[in-house]
Every structure is written in structure tokens, then in C-alpha cells.
């Protein structure tokens, strides 16, 4: 039998329906791959083997009974970022403060995958509470890039990216607040999407920055992303910010949506090619863009003039929300409680001091600072104003183009320790992904080449809000060619 862990979801589906292999075999193949490679990559924090095999068996029964009426994801193994909670399974967000926390409810997106017949392989490693761009901020060890294990896989959804890149799973869920899906997808050479804010319910995604967080997907090709997105998208009464907008069949439209638009205009924002981009990354990207002309598209130079202030605005808003969201981890009801606390004040202070990692603490401090009396106007309020300007930039730009193409990150993957000593430099590596997040727009990262060290370079496509059909179709055509 071929290596089942290299197949696309559609190929897996064909094999399952044609009884070439069973869901149980498919699951075993992935579990074996995880066992073999996880010591090297540390991409999984927890493997839910028993659950996976039970789900695989149920999938086999459904396929045997009525294979044509089973959802496309029946029997397809998936990996879940630890930030997303699953009933009865320890969920830690890679933080010591949540070690041993077993939630009594399941994240809506995960629940939808389970209902579609997917097989849950386990929970993946990440930067603690989704704060980080390298995978170095996990309380349970760093995650390594399978392309070259001396290099970071990107973050914060490090484990979910690595799982897909390394063949441990064909599909995985991550969360993206300022680039946490798109950037690791780029660093590991796979496809990753952050849908429009409000497209996927945030219920069950432990909140980092509520107005920015969005659940998204990793896969090895765009079609697989299209399949997955259909299942996780949609309104959820448990999340007031999830929009009640019909979920289209992304896969069905993937070949047609892009060519349907004659003279599709691709916007190239000049600001993304000046601010500190690595020359090699720029060159590969420019070459790729030129190549796209052969697909009959028009390139339009556009300006997103407030790109420069987006990192500052992002870190103010995201940290403010994070400080607030993380206030609930107080050692009182669940999670880590300091053993040396002598009174309630010490329970709060010591549990948090011992439970949170450095980056999380840094952001809590920052967040509380920008919200505090006397600084609110100077920082938080200004951050909101900047965000409004950035949103307007995109609205203006989309008058002249249909899709915006940018680099995903200024550099390719860097070595462990290269940036972890300088938070500011680490924050700047999000410069190309945060504007799209601040505007709530959908963004997808697709591989478009490699640098001289063989490290992958990603291309980001940004669409209008809820334009995932066109975005996926365009990404699919670009990736194919």
C-alpha cells in the first residue's frame, strides 16, 4: 500500500469509498507517523489514539452502510490546536496555568468536524495562549520545522502547521489572531487560511484577542482547505460575533469562481515591499507575481498607507484584550493554583506568576498598561483609531482590485533563539499579516517558492470580507500554476 499520509483529502476520500483502505487503516497510518516523528517535531501535545480509533471505526461502519451519503470528511484524520477545547480531553493552550484542565464542552468548529465524520488525532503544540510567532513559547517544549529542524516552524499554531507539513494529518485546525495560521503555513510550506472574522464561530477557542481571533485551517493544498472550511463555517448561537451568512460550497466553486471573473485585478500594495522585507523573499514573490500574468490577470499597484502603524495598533489592541481575557486564570476555579499561597491575594498573584510564561506576562502587562486610567486615550483609543484607518485603507484598495497579494512574512523561517531575545523583532515578523487581521478580512497563505537555504516562501492573498469563494478559487489557480 502507498504511504497514506501523503494523500490529499480527495484522494483519501476516493480510497475510502473504493474500499482501497479503511478509515481505521488510514487513522493507523497517521498515528504511526505521529509516533515515529513526534519525538523529533514535538507537534502534538496529546494524541487521542483511543478516540481516533473509535471514530475511525464508526466512520468505516457509515461508509460500509451508505458510502455515497456520508460527508466528505468521513474517516479523515484531523489535528486540533490545543487552543480549541474538546469535551473530556485536556486542553492547556500550551500553558502551565491550564495543565490538567479538562473542559466539559467542545469547540463548535471541532464539533462540526466530528459531526462530519472526521477522526480527531489529538491536540497540537503552540505558542502559549497563541502568543508568539515561532513556536518557542510553549510551556511544553518547542515545536520544530520539518523542513529543517534547526528552524522554527512559525507560530502560534506551530503544531497544527507541522502536523500537516510532516504528514501527521492531512488537515488541522489552528487559530489566527495576527498571523498565527498564515505565517507558520508559510514557514512550513503548506496552505493556511484565516477566514473572515465572523465566518467561523469562536465558541470553544480560548480567547486571546476576541476582536481578532479566528479559527482557520491548514492543509497541503487549497482544495483540502475548501473542503474543511465548508464544515467549520457558519453562524453559531453561542457566538454573537459569528455572522448569519450562508456558507457556500467552496469546493464546488473552486475551479470556476476565479476564471468567471474576466480581467481579475490583483492589487500589489507597495508598502509591503519596502518595510524591511528580505530581498530573497521579495525576489521570489515578484517573480511569481509576474508569472501570474500568464493567467490573464491585471496587476494593479495599490497603496495601504497605514501599513506602518499596524504593528503598533495590533499589539495595543491585542494585548488589551488579552490582558482582559486572561484575567479569569486566577487559580480559584480551575487550572494551576500556587501551592505556596497563604491568602487569596497570594492565590491570585502566585498562581499567575507561576502559571504564565514570559511572553504572556509581557502582553498582560502591556495590555493593562494601555487600558489604565490616564493612558487609555494615548494608547488604546489611538489603537482603535489606527484600526479604523487601516480598515479604510483596505476599503479604498478594494475599489481598484479584487484580491490583494502580499508576502506572508518579511523573512523565511529563522533559527531557534534568533528572535526570541528581542520581542520587538519578533513582533515585526507579523507586519504583513496583522493589517488583514485588524480589518477582519480573509487571508490565505500559499507556498510560492523557496529561498537559497531551501526554506519555503509564502504568498498571502487577501480578499474582501466573506469572499472566501473567490479567494480560494484564486489561490487554487495560483498554487496549481
Amino acid at each position, binding site marked *: 500500500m502507498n504511504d497514506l499520509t501523503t494523500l490529499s483529502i480527495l484522494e483519501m476520500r476516493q480510497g475510502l469509498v473504493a474500499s482501497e483502505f479503511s478509515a481505521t487503516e488510514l487513522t493507523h497510518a497517521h498515528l504511526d507517523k505521529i509516533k515515529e516523528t513526534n519525538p523529533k517535531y514535538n507537534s502534538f501535545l496529546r494524541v487521542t489514539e483511543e478516540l481516533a480509533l473509535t471514530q475511525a471505526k464508526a466512520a468505516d461502519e457509515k461508509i460500509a452502510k451508505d458510502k455515497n451519503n456520508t460527508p466528505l470528511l468521513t474517516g479523515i484524520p484531523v489535528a486540533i490546536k490545543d487552543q*480549541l*477545547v474538546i469535551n473530556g480531553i485536556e*486542553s492547556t*493552550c500550551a500553558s502551565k496555568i*491550564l495543565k490538567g*484542565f479538562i*473542559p*466539559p*464542552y467542545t*469547540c463548535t468548529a471541532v464539533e462540526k468536524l466530528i459531526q462530519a465524520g472526521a477522526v480527531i488525532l489529538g491536540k497540537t503544540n503552540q505558542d502559549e495562549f497563541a502568543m508568539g510567532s515561532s513556536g518557542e513559547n510553549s510551556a511544553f517544549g518547542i515545536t520544530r520545522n520539518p523542513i529543517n529542524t534547526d528552524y522554527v516552524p512559525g507560530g502560534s499554531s506551530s503544531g497544527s502547521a507541522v502536523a500537516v507539513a510532516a504528514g501527521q494529518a492531512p488537515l488541522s485546525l489552528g487559530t489566527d489572531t495576527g498571523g498565527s495560521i498564515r505565517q507558520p503555513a508559510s514557514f512550513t510550506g503548506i496552505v493556511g487560511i484565516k477566514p473572515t472574522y465572523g465566518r467561523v464561530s*469562536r*465558541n*470553544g*477557542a*480560548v*480567547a486571546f*484577542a*476576541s*476582536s481578532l481571533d479566528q479559527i482557520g485551517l491548514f492543509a497541503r493544498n487549497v482544495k483540502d482547505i475548501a473542503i474543511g472550511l465548508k464544515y467549520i463555517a457558519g453562524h453559531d*448561537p*453561542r*457566538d*454573537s*460575533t459569528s455572522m448569519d451568512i450562508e456558507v457556500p460550497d467552496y469546493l464546488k466553486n473552486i475551479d470556476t469562481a476565479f476564471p468567471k471573473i474576466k480581467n481579475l485585478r490583483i492589487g500589489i500594495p507597495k508598502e509591503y515591499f519596502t518595510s524591511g522585507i528580505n530581498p530573497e523573499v521579495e525576489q521570489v514573490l515578484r517573480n511569481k507575481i509576474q508569472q501570474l500574468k500568464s493567467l490573464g490577470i491585471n496587476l494593479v499597484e495599490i497603496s495601504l498607507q497605514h501599513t506602518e502603524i499596524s504593528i503598533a495598533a495590533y499589539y495595543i489592541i491585542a494585548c*488589551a*484584550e488579552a*490582558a*482582559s481575557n*486572561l*484575567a*479569569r*486564570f*486566577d487559580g*480559584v*476555579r*480551575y487550572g494551576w493554583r500556587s501551592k505556596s499561597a497563604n491568602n*487569596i491575594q497570594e492565590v*491570585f498573584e502566585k498562581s499567575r506568576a507561576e502559571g504564565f510564561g514570559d511572553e504572556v506576562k509581557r502582553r498582560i502587562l502591556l495590555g*493593562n498598561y494601555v*487600558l*489604565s*486610567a490616564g493612558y*487609555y486615550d494615548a494608547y*488604546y483609543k489611538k489603537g482603535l483609531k489606527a484600526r479604523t484607518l487601516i480598515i479604510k485603507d483596505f476599503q479604498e484598495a478594494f475599489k481598484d482590485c479584487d484580491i490583494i497579494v502580499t508576502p506572508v512574512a518579511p523573512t523565511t523561517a529563522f533559527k531557534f533563539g534568533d528572535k526570541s531575545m528581542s520581542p520587538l523583532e519578533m513582533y515585526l515578523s507579523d507586519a504583513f499579516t496583522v493589517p488583514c487581521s485588524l480589518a477582519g478580512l480573509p487571508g490565505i497563505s500559499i507556498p510560492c517558492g523557496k529561498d537559497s537555504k531551501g526554506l519555503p516562501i509564502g504568498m498571502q492573498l487577501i480578499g474582501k470580507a466573506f469572499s472566501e469563494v473567490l479567494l480560494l478559487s484564486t489561490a487554487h489557480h495560483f498554487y496549481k500554476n
Partner: protein
Amino acid sequence: MSDLTAIIGLEVHIQLATQSKIFSSSATETGQAPNSLTDPVTLGLPGVLPVLNKAVVDYAIKLGLATNCKIREKSIFARKHYTYPDLPKGYQISQHDKPTCYEGWLNIRVNKQSKKIGITRIQLEEDTGKNIHLANEPFSLIDLNRAGVPLLEIVSEPDMRLPEEAGAYLRILHQLVKYLNICNGNMEEGNFRCDANVSVMQANAQEFGTRVEIKNLNSFKHVEKALAFEIEQQKKLIEQGVTIIQETKLWDEVNEVTKSMRSKEYSADYRFFPEPDLLPLIIDENWIANIKDNMPELPSQTFERLVDTYKLDEYSAELLISDKYVADYFEKALTSHYNPNGISNWITTELFGRLNKESMEFLDCPVSPKSIAILVKLIDTGIISGKIAKTVFDIMWRTGKDPQSIVKEQNLIQISDNIFIQEIIDSVLKQNPTQLQTYKAGKVQLFSYFVGQAMKASNDKVNPELLNEMLKKTLEQ
């Protein structure tokens, strides 16, 4: 002596009587086992999100309309941060600069004078849990049943000058929320809570003095007493030239003094910011119109109706509307026997008197409106006397029986038989020859003595009017 004036503003928190909590589907009952009315949202578990209970908004609009407030088209929820074990998320979801209702007013009456008290804002927010401190234990317990119960915070303008005005404002507001049926209004159970802000300044001053906040005020009386105490205290200090410091005080109801709780030197920084998990609350005209169409009658409207329709005097009408249940009771009674004044009198004297004596709430009154109506009917039709009626009422109260069966069983029917009454009169006069002579000699005051003797002889059963009439005739002969 200088001329000092007090400035009073009140913050009232009312717990709304909705079925479920403001941001989750957990129930809101009281008296349940600790932490049984919780869910992931109430517990502040990670990853779960608040979803606004629309009924809470309905209630807020109701109160907003009833207090002449403007209803904001787009209000914003905000997070208010502080750390306390009974606050599961580390922040309370409240409203900050865009509350749902604002710029309203209520009319109060004190010393027969009407006064308008401004309402700054009415905001929606969630209640906290409760910490339970045990004696002799090194730990405390937390009950989160109350966490997430919907609250409306009603902030008044600093328009009150006297403790009685604060009391009147609270009573009007309390009456209103009961009429609107949005709050159980039980102050001791904390359904209706009040914090008072009070400062003292020279009567002609332009700026208010430094204010003190008083907490733990769980009855109208305590609010008035605490304010009176605090105002006196501040006046004394000012006259002595002592600077008032801004602080929070607790009312000690046993010793009837206000005690310092914490000074505002370390005033909390709540770090408010707009709640990103909830969309702005949009209230359109249709929503408001729909609430308006379904508004229950307000106390002022009931008052007018009682005076206009039933021709009650204003004093009685005022008493009857003091509690929505009383007005309802009154009108229900009228359906069994139409004598508005008679029934109103029985409710406001006998019934109120008895409830007061037994320290009971009107809701717990054991006498049904129908029974009171029938009792008045028995008097009106001459079947029993007013005096006997009091005996019947007493039995009704104790046994819950209806007045007709009591009258029958106890043989209390009034006697209007002329021959029988004449026999009694004759026998009374015969037995009291001395008094009769004195009467005839001109001491007419003895008339009531004969009435009393005759009533006694008949066990209070003769018709008193008839007796009077016949006795007069007999004595004139």
C-alpha cells in the same frame, strides 16, 4: 451658624426576574444548592462566550420608558475589571459610556410638595457570585448561583436634598419595578439594593462638597437613617473646619452609625473597554413600540383610574396603589360586590391593620378578595352589623373560611325582627328603672347606655339602626 445643604444621589441595583441569566441559559432562581445554577459561561471557563438574553433588554426598555428615559439606539457593553473571587472572569460585563437608557426622571412627593428627580442612566450588567466566610475555617466558599443574574443599575442625578426625599425616590422606584413586574423587589434578599452618595456644602456654594458613598442599605428606613446620620456628621465636621475625605462607608444598622470601609486614595482602576464578544445592542423603534404596546399600567395611571372610575378619595387611592397587588386585590374584590368605598375601607383599615400586626406581606394575606367583598356585601344588605363583621373577619383570617358559612355556622345573622327587638327594649328598660328615671329627668346621654345593654342582651345580633330607632320611639312614649 452657617447654612449647610446636603446633596444626595442614589445608585440602585435591581435584580431582574428573568428566567435565565443575562449572558447564559442558566436559571436565576434563589434558594438552590450552591453552584447548582451554573454553566461554563457563569463559571468563566475558557473559550465560552456571552450571549445576550433579549428579555433583559425588554425589561430595561420597560423601566426606561416608565422613568421617562431616552432609549439609546446603539448601546455598548463594556468590561469592568477587578479581581475578586466571586467575579469569575476577572471582569464584569456592564455598560460604561453608552448605557441603554439615559436622561430620565421621576416625580416624588415629600411634605405635600412634588419634586422632579433626574435619572442619569440605567445600565445593563451582570451580578457577581457570593463569597461565604466560615467561622473557624482557614478558607472561604464561593457560590456562583448569583453570578450572571441580570441587573439594572439606576443612577439618579444628585437632585435630592433631604433623607426623606431619598426615601420617597426609592419607594417610587420600588413601586414602579413591582408594577412593571421586572423585579421581585425584596430588599432583604438583595433584589433591590441601594448605595447612597452624599455630600454637604454651603447653601449658596457653586460646587458640591466631597462625597461619601454609603453601602449596605437594605431598607428604605435604613437609607433615611444612614443619610440623616451622615449629613449631621459631615455638617459637624465642616463647622469644625475639618476637611471631608472621599470614602466609602458602611451603614451599621445595629449601632445606627456609618463606618469607614475604605478610602478612595487607592481608587480602583477598572480599565473599561468595549466588550468585544458582544455586538453593539441595537434597539430600533419597532422594539420600543412593541414594549410600549405591552406596558402594564403604571402606578400614576392606576391612581387616576381609582379616583376617576371608583370615586375614591385621593388618600385611599394612594394607599391602594402603594403595592400593585393591593390595587389588583381591590379591583378583583369589586367583581364580587360593587362597593368601592366600602371595600377600600376594609382593605386599608382592617386588612392593613392585621397584616401590620402580624408583620406579614400583602402577598401572604390569607383572606381572598372575594371573601372581603362578600363580607362588605353582608353588611350592605343588613345581614350582619359592622361590629359583627369584625368578628367574622377575625374568623376568616384564622380559618380561611368564607364569610357566609361563618355567619351561618356561628349564627351571627343580624336580627331585624321588630317584635323581638321591642321585647328586648322592654326588658332592658324594665331591668333598669333608676336609669330610666334619670333619663326621663333629662340625662339624655343615657340613651347609649340602653343601646349597649340591648346589644349585649341580643349577643350583638340585633340590627343597630333599627334598635336605635325603636328605642327612641319607646322612650318618647
